[in-house]
């Protein structure tokens, strides 16, 4: 199968006007304009197969949304080549638009003053969805996202969770082959987040819709996307499964030691101190083979140890370590 999205050496450079500060600077800039070049995306390559669910992850300003805008055809790459469903997206914006669905967590595409159903009806016209297909999809989405109680309510009366479900349904009515979601769970409560995640995972598995997610919510990643593409400073840092990322980084388990009173500074060969809260100290175990007994043995008696807790590394830890060790890892991967 050929990839549904393939990027090869894609780059995007913006020319940004250098603004000079102050009144004098403003006057000077009327006559001479200095531009600086900003590389938002720098030589990024990847291929996404149909039916995959991928998280495009990176800190703010890493070039995520620029990449998504290029894939959706509203930005032109300034280097490399990009193909979505076998087409250059920016040259075929209208055709491309029919095959994709986009959800912005922070930007509504529903008509604020109208019942949810009216926005759906408008999309039926925009995408020329055949009547029967529209009815089927609407019934499916209404049932799956539990939208029946508020389908006829104006959007402005909906809770954030209801609105987000309505936005996702809107993006799926025309059976897009690729669904882009920009922080779809931002601001939602636990129950609503869970509902959205379960639904997206379902759509991906049952309908085979390719999902590209940008999210900072790490639970989203664990539950929806097996594959991670991590970027920073416009460059690709990691592309692969979360499991591989964990394995590559080594699972640094966290050991929490609680003492009756502050034992003072403690140095161990088998673990490094990660956080010191006085009577409670957090250590990171050096490697897989170090056991709890090794550490306790090294620690010895007489410190007034009250409690011991050993935690498996969570994904946040994994990703934090990743970004902190970026230069080292870039060479290793």
């Amino acid at each position, binding site marked *: 199968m050929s990839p549904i999205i393939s990027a090869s050496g894609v780059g995007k450079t*913006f020319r940004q006007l250098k603004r000079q500060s102050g009144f004098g600077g403003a006057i000077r800039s009327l006559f001479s304009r200095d531009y600086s070049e900003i590389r938002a995306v720098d030589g990024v390559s990847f291929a996404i197969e149909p039916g995959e669910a991928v998280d495009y992850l990176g800190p703010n300003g890493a070039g995520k949304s620029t990449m998504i805008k290029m894939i959706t055809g*509203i930005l032109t790459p300034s280097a490399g080549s990009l193909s979505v469903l076998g087409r250059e997206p920016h040259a075929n914006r209208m055709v491309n638009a029919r095959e994709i669905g986009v959800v912005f967590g922070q930007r509504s595409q529903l008509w604020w003053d109208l019942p949810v159903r009216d926005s759906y009806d*408008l999309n039926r016209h*925009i*995408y*020329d969805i055949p009547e029967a297909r529209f009815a089927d999809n609407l019934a499916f989405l209404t049932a799956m996202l539990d939208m029946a109680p508020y389908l006829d309510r104006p959007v402005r009366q909906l809770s954030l969770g209801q609105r987000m479900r309505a936005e996702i349904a809107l993006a799926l009515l025309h059976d897009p082959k690729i669904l882009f979601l920009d922080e779809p769970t931002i601001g939602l409560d636990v129950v609503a987040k869970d509902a959205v995640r379960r639904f997206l995972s379902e759509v991906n598995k049952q309908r085979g819709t390719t999902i590209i997610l940008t999210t900072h919510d790490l639970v989203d990643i664990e539950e929806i996307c097996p594959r991670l593409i991590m970027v920073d400073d416009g460059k690709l840092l990691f592309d692969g499964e979360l499991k591989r990322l964990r394995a590559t980084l080594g699972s640094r388990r966290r050991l929490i030691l609680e003492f009756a009173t502050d034992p003072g500074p403690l140095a161990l060969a088998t673990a490094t101190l990660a956080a010191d809260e006085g009577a409670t100290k957090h250590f990171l175990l050096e490697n897989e083979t170090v056991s709890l007994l090794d550490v306790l043995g090294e620690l010895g008696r007489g410190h007034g140890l009250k409690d011991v807790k050993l935690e498996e590394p969570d994904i946040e830890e994994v990703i934090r370590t990743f970004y902190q060790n970026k230069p080292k890892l870039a060479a290793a991967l």
Partner: protein
Amino acid sequence: MKLSAYPAFTATAFTSRLAYRNQVWSGVFGELVATFAFIAVWTAAFVGRGTVDGVTLPDMVTYVLIAGPLLNWNTTRYIREVGDAIRTGDVTTFLLKPLHYPALLFFNQLGNNAFEQLTITLPVAIIVAFTVGLLPPASLAHGLLFVAYWVVSWGIMFLIATLTAMLAFWLLTAFALDWFLRGIMAVASGAIVPLWFMPAPLAAVLGYLPFAWVSYYPSAVYLGKLDLPAAGLHLAIGCVWLAALAGVLTWLWSRMRHRLIVQGG
């Protein structure tokens, strides 16, 4: 998307406006006050005189209503919405759909404007007709020509407003642009004072600018102040302006899209 699907935006915009019924009441009230204020001014100007330059007071009362609320519709809301969408980058959500954005704006505003004409201008016209009195078109032919002028007037007004809103992309303040446009429209379109009462040199200049096709020419044709050949000729000139402005909008939009595409929202 097929062209036949765009009217769905007109219907959606129209129903969307029904959500705020109080706006209708305040709109009708404001428009009534403004209309009667202008009628009072013209009544005072015509005291002791049956006609001024061949124009009667009933002519002017009818002119006030047609040139003002009917043709020189309020663009504030429209310019602010489009300007904001462009400035904040919300316009990209439209670029993600298989849509032509200016066409979407056209059909959308058609719905908004139809709503305002039906809920605000029509009641005001009925009240004026039953209290002060309104004149029918000068003749059947003038009436039919007026309908064609109305279409041209709406098109020109839409294009001028859209161009103004798009300038917000470069100038970043739709608010100031809206004030600027309203000032120009008040004078140059003849919405308040018809060109025939203006000093000849000024009227000559304004008579060639597109603004005059928004209010002045359609109202003058309705009242029979232009004979049929002159009305036909000016309709043709109006169509040329319409095409020229549509051309400018197409060019500006493609430049803007290019800049959005190349530079990012």
